[in-house]
């Protein structure tokens, strides 16, 4: 049952990610991107990473995809995509495929991820790894967010 669901979510996310880059309409692309995130959330929950999956929904679908919609609407419909060159498609798909196959069939898993995954409650494992060994990453991330806020103000208000 779990394996079947995993396959369904995986195939749906692959199909909709192909639709993201191949559909003619920009808004349609963004909606397919939301579908990709939802399916990947399903895969993550089936892997036992429920907190990370739900955060994916909250941050990416709730905020980032809405911002993408903002940008697409602000374009005002001028950027209808043409066919594009198909050779870039093929190269990009090969690169992505290699990364995916390496990720699925590679047997190496980082120690931090193992520490997260063997907990009963995923969120506690995330917290322990994030706020002990990974604390400097959190602080660097805070700095990046600060730079993003200042950059946004500089671009839009000044």
């Amino acid at each position, binding site marked *: 049952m*779990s394996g079947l*669901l995993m396959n369904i979510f995986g195939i749906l996310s692959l199909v909709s990610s192909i639709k993201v880059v191949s559909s003619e309409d920009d808004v349609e692309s963004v909606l397919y991107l939301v579908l990709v995130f939802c399916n990947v959330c399903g895969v993550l*929950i*089936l892997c*036992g990473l*429920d*907190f990370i999956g739900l*955060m994916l929904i*909250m*941050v990416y679908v*709730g*905020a*980032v995809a*809405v*911002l993408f919609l*903002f*940008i697409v*609407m*602000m*374009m*005002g*419909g001028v950027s209808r995509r043409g066919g594009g060159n198909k050779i870039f498609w093929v190269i990009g798909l090969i690169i992505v495929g290699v990364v995916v196959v390496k990720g699925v069939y590679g047997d190496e898993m980082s120690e931090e991820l193992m520490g997260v995954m063997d907990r009963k*409650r995923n*969120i*506690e494992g*995330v*917290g*322990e790894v*994030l*706020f*002990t060994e990974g*604390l400097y990453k*959190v*602080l660097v*991330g*805070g*700095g990046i*967010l*600060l730079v*993003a*806020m*200042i950059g*946004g*103000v500089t*671009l*839009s*208000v*000044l």
Partner: protein
Amino acid sequence: MEEYGVALIFLCVSVIVSVVVEVASYVLGDNKSKGREKLTAYECGFDAFEDARVRFDVRFYLVGMLFIVFDLEASFLFPWGMSLDNVGGYGYWGMIDFIIELCVGYVYVWRMGGLVQHEVNMGESSINNIK
């Protein structure tokens, strides 16, 4: 993962309902009277004045971006709160430092007027014209 079985049931029901609605409206609906006029946008009897995608002020985008920043901060607070017993003072003060970093940005945005919404002048002349 057993506790997510309910979510799976919800997912199946929502898929079934949406398929049923789509198929039923296709089967039961009147397919013959499809015409060009039926598919055009209706705007008070005129042709559509402009594209539905209007440009709007970039300040809306700034508010959306600030929302993302503090959304991320909240999503870091959840695991921090759950693992406070195990991370000790190091993790505690680290999170406080993270919050202070974002507070600096918040105060900066506030002082620069990024949160101020300008009053929109709706144009008194048009209101007078109606009168």
